[in-house]
């Protein structure tokens, strides 16, 4: 019962570097999401996808890109990392009009 799997769990980046946060789910969910969680701020939606080939911006999309080539995978790309992107990133998935299931998170520091 893997559910939603995120890799890596931790990462330190230098300013200006780029990286991809991986997210995969084995529940055949159409809907997938990326959130960031900053201390004392709750979760903010970055991007979401309602199916393969379809993505849309959430509340805080600047500095990020996503793609959805398969149902299972929803990677999040950071280009030109900035200290403001230091956060914990959560991926989630769901069926249409159903509960969201979350991964364990990726803790990212940009120094």
């Amino acid at each position, binding site marked *: 019962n893997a559910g939603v799997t995120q890799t890596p769990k931790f990462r330190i980046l230098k300013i200006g570097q780029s990286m991809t946060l991986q997210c995969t789910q084995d529940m055949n969910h159409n809907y997938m999401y990326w959130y960031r969680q900053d201390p004392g701020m709750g979760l903010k939606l970055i991007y979401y996808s309602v199916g393969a080939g379809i993505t849309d911006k959430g509340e805080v999309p600047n500095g990020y890109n996503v793609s959805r080539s398969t149902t299972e995978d929803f990677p999040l790309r950071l280009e030109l990392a900035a200290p403001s992107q230091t956060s914990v990133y959560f991926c989630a998935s769901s*069926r249409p009009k159903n509960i969201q299931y*979350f991964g364990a998170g990726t803790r990212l520091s940009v120094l």
Partner: protein
Amino acid sequence: AQSVTQPDIHITVSEGASLELRCNYSYGATPYLFWYVQSPGQGLQLLLKYFSGDTLVQGIKGFEAEFKRSQSSFNLRKPSVHWSDAAEYFCAVGLTRGGSQGNLIFGKGTKLSVKP
């Protein structure tokens, strides 16, 4: 705009004591309401949800929550807290039944500490 307010940033209770975590929402229509729990270093786990019907909902781990439309509240309760309940709790509002299509709005969370 829709919003969720959790007025208490940090609460400390004694083990065995009762617990109530507050959540207020702002939304023009009937909301779909959720409580999630996040243990240190972990992802979010759904505790319970309210979609419609009985306003008192039961969840996992002995938690319950009551939807009060007149107060725009969805407070989480537990009659007797266990040390393992120490975690951060998030209230969320969904604009569709399951909060899909990217419209799950979270409160800022309440951190619960449990003292022996």
